[in-house]
């Protein structure tokens, strides 16, 4: 592809923003444009999540964006994150739009909390509502419980333990501890604290679950040619993919032959490596969606960083720490920094490519980023402009 990420913007990450979601959205978009050296009048495309409460036209109106030639929404919760950039890049490459901003803004802690049991999700008169009728009425209707079902099977098949999940949480909190923007700045945890944290849905402890956050992130995408004239070094899109696999459900793909996998992420990975022209060995930093720790392990396997069932050994020796060979989520991820539906991970990938992250990894050339797991998802490979 010949499109690039040229601006990132965000609000503070909090538990109660005290502002409307629309205001958060326009604050983030405005910051991203300013950073890129662009004005609202340069924007002709906007992309967000189906779940976002802020219409493209409302965002455009507030910012004074005069005309939009491209506006789009991506479905399936956090699975949309990297796909917003993919769709923006496709619009740029086809000449449909020139400057597209991807945004996600919510008061997910002080407003509608995803972690609660949503009766509404099971009563929609849609195919998704009917899908949910095989799980919600039986009492399985929180994100944590749906992941826990897969995690239990994964533990059974590969001998992974709660401590293995805990090592992911401890690493994320280590990284967040040195990131002043992170909610858990200066608040690392130990594996013992992870083990002692209360059960949410067994086998998941509280500290296996990401935060609930208020905040917004925006990403500006434009052509590589234009990117080279802008204020920031470009993060070039080397790969951008979506994926949905056989017998796909939202969080409850339990009826496939192999339930302890994320084949849709495997599908995203295969596309990414093919587009980029290299594989996981060339990746310097991985930003993997970490709403729940077990899916971080399974993603490492699906993306080819290690074999099936081998992630627990892969991460055991500090490999995913800041000084390891595959630093994972240097910003602290959604477990440590904030839960902005994966968009804060894309922003961190851009910083790592630019070389100006607060937890900068040395000599970063290529970063892989993934979106929500357990749902139809997406991913990106970003590289330095060469």
């Amino acid at each position, binding site marked *: 592809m010949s499109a690039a990420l040229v601006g990132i913007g965000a609000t503070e990450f909090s538990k109660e923003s005290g502002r409307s979601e629309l205001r958060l959205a326009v604050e983030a978009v405005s910051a991203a444009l300013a950073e890129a050296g662009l004005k609202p009048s340069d924007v002709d495309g906007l992309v967000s999540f189906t779940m976002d409460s802020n219409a493209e036209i409302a965002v455009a109106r507030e910012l004074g964006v005069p005309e939009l030639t491209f506006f789009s929404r991506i479905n399936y919760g956090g699975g949309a994150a990297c796909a917003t950039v993919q769709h923006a890049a496709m619009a740029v490459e086809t000449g449909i739009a020139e400057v597209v901003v991807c945004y996600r803004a919510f008061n997910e802690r002080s407003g509608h909390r995803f*972690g609660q049991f949503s009766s509404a999700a099971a009563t929609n008169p849609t195919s998704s509502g*009917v899908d949910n009728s095989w799980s*919600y009425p039986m*009492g*399985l209707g929180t994100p944590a419980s749906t992941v826990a*079902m897969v995690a239990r099977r994964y533990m059974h098949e590969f001998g992974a333990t709660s401590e293995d999940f805990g090592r992911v949480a401890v690493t994320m909190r280590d990284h967040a501890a040195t990131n002043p923007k992170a909610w858990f700045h200066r608040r690392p945890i130990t594996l013992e604290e992870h083990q002692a944290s*209360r059960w949410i849905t067994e086998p998941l402890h509280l500290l296996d679950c990401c935060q609930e956050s208020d905040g917004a992130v925006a990403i500006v995408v434009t052509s590589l040619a234009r990117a080279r004239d802008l204020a920031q070094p470009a993060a070039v899109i080397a790969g951008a993919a979506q994926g949905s696999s056989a017998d796909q459900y939202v969080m409850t793909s339990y009826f496939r032959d192999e339930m302890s996998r994320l084949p849709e992420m495997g599908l995203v990975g295969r596309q990414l490596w093919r587009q980029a022209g290299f594989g996981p060995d060339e990746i310097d930093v991985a930003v993997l969606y970490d709403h729940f720790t077990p899916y971080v392990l399974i993603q490492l396997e699906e993306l080819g960083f290690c074999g099936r069932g081998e992630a627990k050994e892969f991460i055991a020796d500090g490999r995913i720490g800041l000084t390891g060979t595959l630093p994972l989520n240097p910003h602290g991820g959604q477990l440590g920094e904030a839960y902005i539906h994966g968009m804060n991970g894309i922003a961190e990938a851009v910083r790592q490519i630019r070389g100006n992250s607060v937890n900068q990894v040395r000599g970063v050339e290529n970063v892989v980023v993934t979106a929500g797991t357990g749902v139809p998802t997406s991913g990106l490979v970003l590289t330095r402009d060469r």
Partner: protein
Amino acid sequence: MTAPKGISAVAREMAAQGECTPRVARDPVNEAMINNWTEALGDDNPAYPAVAPPAMVQVWTMRGLHPNPDDDPLGRMSEVLDAEGYTSVVATNSEQTYHRHLKPGERVAVTSRLEEVVGPKQTALGEGWFVTTRSIWRVGDEPVAEMMFRILKFRPKPVARAAVTPMVSKDTEFFWVGTKIGELRIQKCAACGALRHPPGPMCPRCNALDPTFIVSGGLGEVYSYVVHHHPQVPGKRTPFVIALVELEEGVRMLGELLDVDPEQVKIGMPVRVRFVPSGEFTLPAWEVR
């Protein structure tokens, strides 16, 4: 509706009014009531009934079954809070101080004042206000006993919202009709014979639009399971076990695993179906076999 600020303002006003009109005991302190009380409590202290047990002080000024309206501040404040939706009450503190024993023949009167009203507070029971009153019992002008009394008036949390009922489509209706009559139905393609759960309109194997069903034997094994603790789930009491069961026919299905110690659940555990009515529907659930 009075705003919460309104509640505080009303409370300040009521507190400023000081003591309410004294309520005079219906009967003087008497041996008959003292004997009934000490007998019921098994208190054989020989000092009674020459004097009354101090803890009886409230007994003398009870309102009876048909109380006259009065200006007691606890009652008035409760009405204010009731009107704001803080309809439930629980007593949280009661501290009594006795200045001297009462003797048969003495007639007491009680008067109360509102001390403070604090809120709204988030409590385990729900949002509420703590109402504190102070009562003084007197014989003539002489105080004989005092009581600090605190209640929590709260807005009860909605308990166990109704269980979630399934969204039914024309494609899935047969399943729910089945559970209602004690049949666990599995969709079967009439063209190629493929079994499938969850069901849908088209066979993914041969694309036939000709679904029918078989009735499962209801036997299977736990393929995976979770023990749910947080947050609360409508219609369920935590913790509870949800099992993904692989039926002998080869399809998987979710249901609550009933009457089981969560610690004892294992993948591979043999289970059988049990049908659980839930509102208008009947849900499939499992029990260990």
